[in-house]
């Protein structure tokens, strides 16, 4: 069996990204313009499309902004955070035509399927329609806050105008000074001709315009705060009727301390993120608009373009003893890929604990051929592999033999090398042009952790 079954986020094989961080290939992207590996830290994350995680309804971002990123139809339980479901009941209401009789009418309320909280618990009356009837609570201080805001906005406007006026009037007064000192009236003539004096500083700002600022109502101060109720010293408290801090903070505007003041809250939206290369600003990942779709419009993840390396479990690794190990390289693209190995020079933050001898020859990874992989057809091509370097070949996988000499007596054996492979750049050329796609050689610095050294005892 080729390769090991490793967890997709293992740290066994790590690639160096353009911002000098080591990551496993599953967390990396590749930019097709800069030909560099990018990680989550060196790409620009962008908010793409908001959607509700419950009803999976897409919401245009302008509307989402208006609704403060909350879904209009779905609600969360204020008690446990689970999604609330709408329940219908029938209620008998008096018939308007015949007051003696009553007719059934459908009424709706919200209930939590997890903690059994319902809107009836907190005395919110049932609604005659299934959705849209649940109004938000009003902030009691809204009026005061908006008067304050209006007031400050006027002040800010005034400040801005004054600043602008100062800027212009200074320049003008300088010219006026020159004009007053001018014995022969030449400067003023010149200035007049240019229209400098007569023209106002800024047509939008009138000289004597005063922004009218009404004084706002003084803030009310109090001399006393209400004391604690006496019951607190005598009555036992019921913990279940007191809200926890997370329940309070989830309703930040009201922060109720009693459970009876809880109110259903609108479900918070989630977003799909798109990623952009920070250097060339091209998209690296862009999801489909539809929240149900798991596909991407653009998906430049490294796993689809760079050969993936896995480790075949080595035998014993002993201190200062040459050992042959096999690494599996699998080709993700559907063209044959040439690979070469270069000894890593310098240090980019890796901890190398073993020497590695790399194959000198160029090797070819067969293209990825999905139907052939399932049909178990024999390889179509003959690669004339050198058995001293290649341990096995199967479909797009190639097992390559490396010689490793551990240089430590204990701890993990880590090697580092540079993987160089060719890459058919289909992005640069337009399909209409009949040019051959450009072939680029990419180099990636890779570290492989081969596991602990076997003690020599």
């Amino acid at each position, binding site marked *: 069996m080729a390769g090991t079954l490793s967890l997709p986020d293992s740290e066994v094989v790590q690639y160096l990204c353009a911002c000098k961080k080591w990551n496993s290939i599953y967390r990396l992207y590749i930019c097709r313009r800069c030909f560099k590996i990018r990680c989550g830290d060196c790409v620009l994350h962008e908010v793409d499309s908001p959607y509700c995680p419950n009803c999976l309804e897409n919401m245009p971002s302008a509307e989402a902004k208006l609704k403060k990123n909350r879904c209009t139809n779905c609600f969360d339980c204020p008690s446990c955070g689970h999604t609330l479901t709408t329940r219908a009941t029938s209620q008998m209401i008096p018939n308007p035509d015949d007051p003696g009789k009553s007719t059934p009418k459908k009424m709706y309320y919200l209930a939590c399927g997890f903690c059994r909280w319902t809107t009836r618990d907190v005395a919110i009356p049932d609604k005659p329609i299934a959705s849209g009837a649940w109004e938000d609570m009003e902030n009691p201080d809204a009026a005061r806050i908006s008067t304050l805001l209006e007031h400050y906005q006027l002040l800010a406007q005034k400040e801005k105008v004054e600043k602008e006026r100062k800027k212009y009037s200074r320049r003008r007064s300088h010219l006026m000074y020159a004009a007053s000192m001018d014995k022969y009236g030449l400067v003023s003539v010149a200035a007049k001709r240019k229209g400098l004096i007569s023209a106002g500083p800024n047509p939008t700002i009138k000289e004597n315009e005063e922004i009218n600022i009404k004084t706002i109502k003084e803030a009310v101060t109090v001399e006393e705060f209400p004391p604690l109720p006496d019951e607190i010293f005598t009555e036992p408290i019921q913990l279940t009727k007191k809200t926890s801090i997370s329940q309070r903070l989830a309703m930040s505007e009201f922060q109720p301390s009693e459970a009876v003041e809880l109110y259903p809250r609108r479900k*918070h939206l*989630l*977003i799909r993120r798109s990623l952009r290369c920070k250097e060339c600003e091209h998209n690296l990942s862009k999801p489909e608009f539809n929240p149900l779709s798991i596909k991407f419009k653009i998906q430049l993840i490294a796993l689809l373009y760079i050969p993936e390396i896995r480790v075949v479990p080595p035998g014993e690794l002993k201190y200062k003893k040459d050992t042959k190990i096999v690494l599996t390289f699998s080709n993700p693209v559907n063209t044959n890929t040439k690979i070469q190995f270069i000894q890593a020079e310098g240090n980019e933050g890796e901890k190398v604990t073993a020497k590695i001898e790399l194959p000198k020859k160029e090797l070819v990874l067969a293209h990825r051929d999905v139907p052939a992989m399932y049909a178990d057809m024999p390889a179509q091509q003959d690669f004339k592999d050198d058995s001293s370097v290649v341990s096995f070949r199967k479909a797009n996988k190639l097992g390559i033999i490396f010689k490793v000499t551990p240089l430590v007596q204990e701890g993990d054996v880590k090697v580092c090398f540079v993987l160089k492979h060719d890459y058919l750049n289909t992005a640069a050329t337009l399909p209409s042009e009949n040019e051959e796609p450009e072939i680029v050689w990419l180099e990636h610095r890779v570290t492989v952790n081969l596991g602990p050294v076997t003690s020599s005892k």
Partner: protein
Amino acid sequence: MPLYEGYTSDKNVVIFDFGAAYTKCGVAGEMCPRCIIPSQLKDQKTGKIKQIWEYNTEDELYENLKDFLFILYFRHILINPKDRRMVVCESLLCPEIFRETLAKVMFKHYEVGSVLFSPGHLTAMLTLGTNTGLVMDVGYNETLVIPIYEGIPVIKALQSLPVASKAIHQRMKEMLLSNGKVKTGNEEYSLSDKPELLTEEILEDIKVRCCFTTKWDRAKKIHDVTLYGADISNLPSPPPSVHYPLDGGSILVIDGTIREQVCEVMFEQDNEQVSVTTLLLDAIIQSPIDMRVELSQNIVILGGTALLPGFLHRIQMELLDLIKQPRYSNVLALKKFRYHQAPAKSNYTSWLGGSMIGSLETLPSKSVSRDQYTESGKLSDWCNLATVGQS
């Protein structure tokens, strides 16, 4: 005039208030934060919870803030950070390394357009519509009192005490460990056998749901016993105890004395005779004499800890009592105090002020833009004379 002026008309200015315990985050012009979440991160691999303020090196803090802002932007606010403006409400005593690293993360990593660092005490004044007040912020780590006169913080009168929410938690932990009992079925054992049951979250939950700041007359009796060694029989009869469920099977019995007494840690005068309440009077004494009356008539109390039931009433009672004592009556001729009530819960009052600043047209001229930051490489700071007057 920079080209981008007038950008503020679209309300995409994000306001942050990074508290030691909770971070408030929202959009300018709104009346409450979009989210108030614990200032902590969960490690994706190990699942360990990590406080963003806990760091050993600058790089660690950088990573913390980067990950934390990512959550705030892409989980809660859902606004692109790039080229947008933001406002940070900070404490005047915010460590320089935190500000600088925050600026680095914002400008270099998220490429935000501009940042305005604004003292939380000052922004809180905006929510009141006045510009003079004695502002006390009772937070998680410390209580900080700063008088603000005509919109200017009187730095020389600044008073602080490292006693706030955290101290309450610690006191509660001590008290519970010394006499807390846990019941599992019919078995009963003392909590000190299993101290690991008492996590910070549980302590906070107990505080929020069970504890309160007791009345002044009762507190005097409690202080007589706990501080001055009076006989224990002088204690007022404690409130009923609470059976607090720890997990599925065990129940922690919280004694009434704990419920009543944990918050006293803020009001017990230490060796220097300083408590949360004396901070207010000390700040008034430190202020110039012609400000004093006005400050005493405009007391503002902020911070999540001030939400404790009975806290405000207690401050009021204690102030009136302290002012009669020779220690203060010889210096201050004050008789009465008046308090402001902000149009917000006290744990996000500073944030609300930030939200107001952020919605104004003057925001661009007051904040540090990315260009300015890249040019100078650092922020101006009020305590650094070299940078004063630059911005």
